[in-house]
């Protein structure tokens, strides 16, 4: 059955009459709005014989075409001791040339037509993206498909990539937030490949054969999905993709990576770095998108710290106490699992005050959930009303529809989203808060200089680890 996601179509002006004539201003809460009826365009899905799946949406506003190939690979598959291999493979696939052209020739051709091709490598996916003028689509696609099918990973470009990556890793120590969030990742995924991070040593060990093997393992048509949008007719796009990638035939490919083990045991971790501001992160495991707890947890996250000024962490730590400029929460749900946390950057002397305030907010949420109907209604209304922005750009619509299939989520996930959100009750929130915010699995991470703290961190409990700022290589 077809469903309307958000309710309404064209903009109709409806001035509330008292605002129009009255001398005094309408209460902003009393403004009456015309309904918004909108059925987001549905991307066309095509499965080619070799297994490649294409999602396609026309958009003729601007003479550009965007294309993204998503491949199931990523840092999750980095061999132990060679962390960083997935990323380097992605980089050198882009720079290292193909069977017909050197990397430099490709760059020249691409820059001349002002095309852009980038690679990004995540934990369990790699995305090769291109943006090109509609008139240069054929030239662009030829380069794009050759990078995908025929990369040669030249030795010279590998050397350059390793040098640059090594320097980038060394420069992480200049960025306190980056150090802290990397370390948090290591802690939350302890004992799982997701928790292993690249280092100068691991990059050093990577060789060209590693790239070739890694490429062979993952780059297979059955392991690739493509999102395409822009100023091109659907039939034409399908024809072009078929002619450039249709003959690529290598069966197989890896399945989805296993879910990380659920993290147990609380810990308090301190990273020493003499910086003007401490970085504080408190986090734990959270439900994935396929869990029945997902919608309630989205609301929980919104109320805790990602719902702007009114959210609890922001209102308390930043606005009421003035302890931080940035403070809030983050929730990154994948299909089967997720991570949730709260963070703040506070000046050294306020570190422990900020940490206490944050802990109190988490404890309160865990013990009481959300008691005020008003707060719950505010969060739900905000999330539901904002959902339309998931459909504001064609490239984003086609990508999100494709990612549902890539992530193994039901294809009505987005269409049912607002209805599911609507059903969240305060009892659901209480349930997920109690279930996921247990103090027993909470990871607390503080980066800063404890000499400057006004109270000792130990007032918080026992230290589990003290990590020095630059050498954070522990597993």
């Amino acid at each position, binding site marked *: 059955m077809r469903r309307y996601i958000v309710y309404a179509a*064209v903009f109709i002006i409806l001035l509330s009459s008292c605002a129009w004539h009255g001398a005094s201003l309408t209460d902003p809460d009393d403004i009456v709005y015309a309904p918004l009826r909108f059925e987001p365009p549905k991307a066309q899905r095509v499965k080619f014989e070799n297994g490649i799946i294409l999602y396609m949406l026309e958009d003729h*506003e601007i003479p550009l075409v965007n294309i993204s190939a998503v491949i199931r690979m990523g840092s999750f598959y980095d061999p132990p001791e060679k962390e960083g291999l997935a990323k380097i493979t992605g980089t050198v696939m882009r720079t290292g040339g193909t069977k017909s052209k050197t990397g430099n020739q490709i760059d020249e051709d691409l820059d001349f037509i002002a095309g852009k091709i980038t690679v990004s490598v995540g934990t369990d996916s790699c995305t090769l993206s291109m943006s090109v003028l509609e008139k240069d689509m054929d030239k662009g696609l030829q380069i794009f498909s050759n990078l995908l099918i025929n990369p040669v990973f030249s030795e010279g470009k590998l*050397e350059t990539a390793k040098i640059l990556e090594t320097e980038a890793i060394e420069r992480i120590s200049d960025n306190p937030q980056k150090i802290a969030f990397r370390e948090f990742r290591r802690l939350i995924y302890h004992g799982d490949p997701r928790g292993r991070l690249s280092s100068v040593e691991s990059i050093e060990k990577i060789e060209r054969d590693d790239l070739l093997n890694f490429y062979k393992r993952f780059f297979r048509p059955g392991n690739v999905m493509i999102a395409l949008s822009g100023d091109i007719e659907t039939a034409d796009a399908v024809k072009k993709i078929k002619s450039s990638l249709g003959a690529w035939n290598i069966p197989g490919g890896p399945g989805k990576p296993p879910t990380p083990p659920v993290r147990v045991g609380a810990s308090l971790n301190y990273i020493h770095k003499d910086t003007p501001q401490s970085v504080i992160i408190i986090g734990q495991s959270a439900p994935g998108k396929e869990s029945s707890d997902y919608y309630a947890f989205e609301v929980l996250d919104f109320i805790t710290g990602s719902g702007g000024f009114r959210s609890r962490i922001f209102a308390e730590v930043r606005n009421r106490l003035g302890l931080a400029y940035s403070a809030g929460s983050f929730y990154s749900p994948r299909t089967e699992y997720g991570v949730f946390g709260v963070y703040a950057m506070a000046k050294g002397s306020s570190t422990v005050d900020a940490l206490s305030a944050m802990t109190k907010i988490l404890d309160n949420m865990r013990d009481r959930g959300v008691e005020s109907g008003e707060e719950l209604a505010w969060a739900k209304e*905000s999330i539901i009303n904002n959902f339309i922005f998931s459909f504001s750009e064609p490239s984003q619509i086609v990508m999100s529809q494709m990612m549902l299939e890539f992530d193994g989520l039901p294809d009505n996930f987005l269409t049912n989203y607002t209805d599911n959100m609507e059903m969240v009750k305060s009892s659901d929130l209480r349930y997920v808060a109690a279930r996921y915010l247990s103090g027993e699995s909470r990871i607390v991470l503080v980066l800063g200089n404890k000499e400057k703290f006004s109270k000792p961190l130990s007032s918080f409990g026992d230290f589990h680890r003290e990590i020095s700022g630059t050498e954070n290589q522990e597993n």
Partner: protein
Amino acid sequence: MISGKSLRNILLECLAITCLASFFLCIPLAPCSAYDLKDKVKEFTLENGLKVLIVERHASPTVSLYISHETGAVDEGDGHTGTAHILEHMMFKGTETIGTKNFEEEKSTLRKIHAVGNALDTELMKGENADVQKTENLRRQLDTLQKEAGKWSIPSEIDRLYTEKGGGDLNAFTGQDLTSYHVSLPSNRIELWARIESDRMANPVFREFYSERDVVMQERKQTVESNPGRRLIEQFLAAAFMVHPYRRPVLGWTPDMRFLNIDYIKEFFRTYYAPNNTIITIVGDVSPEGVMKIIKHYFGRIPSQEVPIRHVTEEPPQSGERRVKLVSDASPRLIAGYHKPTLPSFDDCVFDIIDTILSGGRTSRLYKALVEKGIAVDVNTTNGFPGARYPNLFVIFAQPVSPHTCGELEEIIYKELDILKKEPAKPEELEKAKNQLKTDILRNISTNSGLAGMLSYYEVVTGSWQYITKFPDLLERVTPEDIMAVAEKYLESRNRTVAELVKKK
């Protein structure tokens, strides 16, 4: 990382609702377009001088709304650095009808708070001679009064109203040249925007001033003091400009920020947030007639006022290289910049081409000479730093790969600049740069907020958004000889400022 396009506005400070969001407002360096903007932009001016630009786009029922005031950090008086930026924060504190339970009661408490706050600042300005007992008393009074005011105020109402109605990207940006307020909304909710924005343009109430002042001090700690790159930029600008206000950071200098003054901020607001000093830009699913009806109703009643002629101290010509060093425990970095005229001068347009030839893409000259060879981890150039209402800088940023040094980078960079002066660029290279500049614009205007941001930026900085449509012709006129001449004229060592981050031994 090699495209310097987002750097133009690196010094815009914003409200940063989430910490991990980037604080750049990405406005492309040089406008241009195969997409015909001319017929798409509808222009209106209200009787009070408020200008409105509207572009219809009906792909989704959403709309991006910008309000830009032609004012920024350049307009601050000495000793008041940070005013434009904290004003932008204060604009989120509500109005006489938004954010209060009883404004009459609240008003008198706020008046007392500001009086006590001013007295406290005056005492603290005495430094070591401040009367400890007196400051303690004032502080206690301030605390009590702030608690009292808290009884009447409803915090974060503007944010609540927008968020609840589906608002996205709610943020504001303060730069040297302009200050912008942005939100995206479902397109049926424009009246909410007009109601809130017109009210805060006419009757803002600066609640929670002293705690917000603490927040911006934290903002500085986070975005500048904890960030070696930003600290170096600050030192660089203070050296490159001796007298022009571009020498000062948008966030302000810490000693000024401690004493940011509520009366001065109010005056700044009254002077520069006038409707006749403001541009509204709207891109999305709207009908211009319908929107204008709402805008006239809500904004039309705000009286226009005289905006003073601004005298800004002109920067004298530089007559010798300046060098600054910042010693820090961070890895080395280099910044080198040259004074130049701003847009809409032809030379500025030539610099857009130079910018692209030097660092636009993997085949650009500096990328090949530095990054490709493993000598620098990245290199960027940017044309029009740190603002564009006044003559500005062409700047090169680079970070060496260990064990290479900033000195080595300088040598290679200057050699490339010399080649610009001596050898005419090949026609293919020039054409490539022009293609890139044109296509970058298309990418930037492909989103509603990108187009809205660009229209308001060029309207404020050049006096007309039509600079965007004229730009392609300007670009076409640039010849290899122009590049050589401009390089020769400006890219010389006596016109150069160099800042270097040196790692503490």
